[in-house]
């Protein structure tokens, strides 16, 4: 549905040339949600702006729904853009228009008759759950509501493709989840292909089918979300994955934590489960085999695609002479295990 072929974009800044994108190729199949993740300045904004030619690539090809956009005239491009919806981090609603008029805006641009605009707008506001706000101005809405209006606005033209430019980055976690659910719902119900860029692994994890990691203008890794979480090849990818898992040693433990074992302390272990970890009930196995006990101090487990992954802090007790063997057993099952101290 969306295809980028060897897209390169350079900017002239004073005397030097900055390469924002270098030889980027990706394909988003019809009906899929594709995420591009990267740190700020990695070129992800430029990438998504290239898809609807808000930014014209220096070289390469952009094909959306079978049309090579780079070959179109400005007038043709304006019409083609109506097939490509886009939502933004800062919503970009027109402050002089009410919610209703904002959603009506793209329909006015396309010359839709007034009566038709009215039914379509009300239907869209219903879809995003803001029908009762139709006559309010954007200034009186919360961030999440503004993004809903922006989503309704961009759906007005029945686009085949939806581009999301950091659409949830300005929102709080709860609102982020509700917007992501809405996007997923739209993707499923209206069969719209979604390309999104983000710096939050949570976004990728919760709604994407496929993901690409961008760094310094290059796509360094891409694949299905399950595969990437199961077996990340690049250091940056691993960082993004672990950044979506926060685990902290509870303060009660932190205070008691010792660096060395004085003979009667229990080791505190950190277990990291990735897609490579064996899909077996390893903890109870170890408990039985090595005559040890576990107390789970804190844990965060998650599912991405088929893959179960996460981190866990456990306090180990039982037969002291078997501790090393137990740790080795975990590692042999690809559960990365380390002793972070003794309590």
């Amino acid at each position, binding site marked *: 549905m969306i295809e980028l072929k060897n897209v390169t974009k350079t900017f002239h800044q004073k005397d030097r040339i900055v390469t924002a994108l270098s030889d980027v190729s990706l394909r988003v199949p019809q009906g899929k949600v594709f995420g591009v993740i990267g740190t700020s300045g990695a070129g992800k904004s430029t990438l998504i702006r290239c898809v*609807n030619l*808000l930014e014209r690539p220096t070289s390469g090809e952009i094909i959306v729904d079978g049309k090579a956009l780079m070959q179109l005239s400005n*007038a043709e491009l*304006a*019409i*083609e*853009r*109506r097939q*490509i*919806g*886009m939502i*933004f981090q*800062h919503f*970009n*609603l*027109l*402050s*002089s*228009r009410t919610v209703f008029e904002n959603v009506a*805006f*793209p329909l*006015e*641009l*396309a010359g839709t008759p007034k009566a038709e605009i009215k039914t379509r707008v009300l239907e869209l506001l219903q879809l995003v759950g803001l029908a009762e706000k139709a006559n309010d*101005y*954007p*200034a009186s809405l919360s961030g999440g509501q503004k993004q809903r209006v*922006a989503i309704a*606005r*961009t759906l007005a*033209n029945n686009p085949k493709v939806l*581009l999301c430019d950091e659409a949830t980055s300005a929102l709080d976690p709860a609102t982020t989840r509700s917007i992501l659910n809405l996007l997923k719902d739209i993707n499923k119900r209206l069969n719209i292909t979604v390309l999104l860029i983000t710096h939050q692994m949570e976004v990728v994890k919760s709604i994407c089918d496929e993901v690409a990691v961008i760094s310094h203008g290059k796509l360094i890794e891409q694949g299905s979300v399950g595969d990437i979480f199961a077996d990340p090849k690049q250091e940056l990818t691993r960082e993004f994955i672990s950044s979506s898992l926060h685990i902290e040693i509870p303060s009660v433990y932190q205070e008691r934590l010792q660096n060395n074992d004085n003979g009667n302390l229990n080791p505190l272990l950190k277990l990291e489960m990735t897609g490579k970890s064996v899909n077996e009930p390893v903890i109870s196995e170890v408990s039985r085999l090595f005559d040890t006990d576990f107390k789970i101090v804190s844990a965060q487990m998650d599912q991405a695609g088929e893959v179960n992954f996460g981190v866990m802090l456990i306090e180990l007790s039982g037969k002291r002479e078997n501790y090393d063997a137990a740790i080795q057993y975990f590692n042999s099952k690809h559960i990365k295990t380390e002793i972070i101290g003794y309590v």
Partner: protein
Amino acid sequence: MSDSLIDLLLKGTWETIVMTFVSGFFGFLLGLPTGILLFLTRKNQILEQPVLNRILSVLVNVFRSIPFIILIVWMIPFTRALVGTSIGVSAALVPLSIGAAPFIARLVENSLLSLPSGLIEAARALGATPFQIVYKVLLPEALPSLINAASITLITLVGYSAMGGAVGAGGLGQVGYQYGYIGYDAVTMNSVLGLLVVLVFLIQFAGDKLSKRFDHR
């Protein structure tokens, strides 16, 4: 205050109002498109045209640097060709409009520059043509600040028209100059000043009210 003086002041006030608003109207007719063009042809804007932008910018700066009293005199041949005379209210409208236009163009350009750039981006992404961007996005979004620009312009024009009065343009300026300054009549002079102050206050007040009414940010 004699009846004849009141008549004189009423006539002067009316002429000043006519000069201010009519030249303001023509000033906007010239200045608004120029300001929009100045904005659109800037670097990284939708109709980026560095050469055209440069030419417009220089032209605007040249006209803005001519002192108004000189502009009136300098434009006399043009004014005569256009309205057939160089004296009176209708003659004053020509240099007033021309003098206000570049000032308005810069105010308009600044109003548009202060809009968030994401608005144009969103409109482009929704398939808006440059013309649609101007009249459906830029002008409605900038309306509150354009109204403020209009009040600033009109107040400047009140001052300009009074200056024009010194060289035969009519209006309160002429009354104040002839009867007050040359005739050394303190009552007339101060009445003129009072009326000008009231006029300026009214324009500012109406402008603020109107601007606020259209501001939904």
